[in-house]
């Protein structure tokens, strides 16, 4: 039990990931699949962001130019690297979302439906 409470961020990301995965694989509507994909990617972004979150943390800066002893102690700042990485991952996931929605639009124009089974019927 203690691990569930102290590591709750991991449980949340796993829960979100499973919701996204379920939507992507089990839903019939293409837009719902795309929403699932977005939840899935967001879960991983939350995972990265949460690993460097810290209570009462500050930003990693050197207060006085060049003086090493004036730098903020490592224990007091939040590691900015995962957050910066996730800026890139957000850009990637927005790109993926855009391409997926464009495909949905194209599919709707051609088959006049967004339901997977109806499209499969027309493809037969």
């Amino acid at each position, binding site marked *: 039990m203690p691990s569930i409470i102290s590591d709750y961020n991991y449980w949340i990301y796993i829960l979100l990931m499973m919701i996204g*995965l379920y939507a*992507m694989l089990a839903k019939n509507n*293409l837009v719902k*699949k795309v929403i699932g*994909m977005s939840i*899935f*990617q967001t879960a*991983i972004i939350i*995972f*990265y962001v949460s*690993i460097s979150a810290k209570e009462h943390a500050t930003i990693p800066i050197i207060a006085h130019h060049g003086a090493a002893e004036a730098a903020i102690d490592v224990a007091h700042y939040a590691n900015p690297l*995962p957050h910066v*990485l996730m800026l*890139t*991952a957000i850009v*990637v996931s927005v*790109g*993926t979302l855009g*391409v*997926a929605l464009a*495909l*949905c639009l*194209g*599919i709707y124009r*051609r088959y006049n439906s967004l339901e997977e089974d109806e*499209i499969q019927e027309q*493809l037969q």
Partner: protein
Amino acid sequence: MSFAEQAPVLLVIIPLLSALLVNMVGLINRRYCLPVAVTGILGSLTASVITLIRVMENGVISYRLGGWPPPFGIEYVIDHLNGLVLVTISFVSLLAVIFSKESIKKELPEKIPQFYTLFVLLVTGLLGMTVTGDAFNLYVLLEISALTGYALIAMGDNRALVASFNYIILGTIGASFYLLGVGHLYIMTGSLNMGDLLTILPRLYTLNVVFIALLLILTGTWIKMAFFPMHGWLPNAYTYAPSAAGCLVAPLVTKVSVYIMIRIMLSVFSPLYVYNIAGLSETIVWMAVIAILSGSILALAQTDFKKMLTYLIVAEVGYMVGGAWLASSAGLTGAILHIVNDALMTLCLFIFAGIVIYKRGGHQLQDLAGLYKKMPVTMAAFTVGALSMIGVPPTAGFFSKWYLILGAIDAGRYHFMAALLFSSLVNAILFFRVIEIAYFEPKIDHHGGETENIVVDEAPLSMLVPLIIVALSLIVIGLYSGDIVTNIIQHSVPQGL
């Protein structure tokens, strides 16, 4: 600041900038798109060849982007393994872009600038994935090449949109698993640089989280390379893609994913960890056996020529994954050699399929009837590709299969050897069936009468030349495969596994 010194970064930057330029000149006149794209890819081929030669002379090259030292900045690392893959990628994409000239004019006349922009961006992504020494940078480039791939495939005929949609869903799951695996490694080590990870990880080998990270990364790359149970997206996506896009995507994307798997195995985790501590070798070789068998059997069931080729790709991925996990030097050598050979063989067969679509308007097996008399040169080149797929010496396909079989014997995994032989047999049946249709059955005339005077009607030169070059290169690489192994591949394969 010579060209040779900057070549590792130029081989990514040249196609990246030319993708931008293709888009801009496309606004002025769409006839300029192809020359710009060819120039860009030619530039990266030159840079890749120079880089490979420098690696062979002086050993591993480390290029620091912006001058930042490795664990902090992004580093490009080129050793013998990815030097070879880089040359393969740029060579294959050069031939594919030349082939695309007539095919695109016929299939997508109104989308020429968009097509070439995406085409060159995809090449950029693949080259970047291969050259980078940073695990997160690899993820970004993986997604760049995947996104352009989805869009290229979606430009195809009727069913391409749905196929591309399925690909985007599965491809995103794959890339996300990879990212998650890298995240687990980052939590444990605080580093994203592959060389740095290799030195930090040995202290953590006993931890479960390292094992989970390996599993996540492997699953991610397997989805991207269509390793058997995760192959669902591949056949439709590659079949219904425009033929020029198929010529780029089918030979390269799966092969680069295999390269990434090998790179992660050797340069992030070590051979000691992946083969001995993780204890996955036996399971994965069995999975590869199942992949080879199912890919071959599913290929037998197809009546569509292009779809048959896509199932053969699924089987070939099984060859490479199995070879890499045999835990023997010969097996790994075979897997690496097969990355090069399979890229060329697949290119040869897909260019041929593209020519058939151009001439006959379809890609069913029946569309091939009577082709030997109408297009003798095309069919000769196709026959070389088919023989290489079967594994007949002296074509390239024989030698990589030979190393894989040696590796299977070394490692005592006879079921893998049996699967390889079975797959060669199936390939022989498949391609002789194709050759029989193309050789003997004349195209049935609708008027009922026999058409006596068959006119030789070859494909346009811009399609024929890449096909002939790739067919010749299959023979040349076959003849020189001993040299390639001793001078290039041996340096990347850890000895004494």
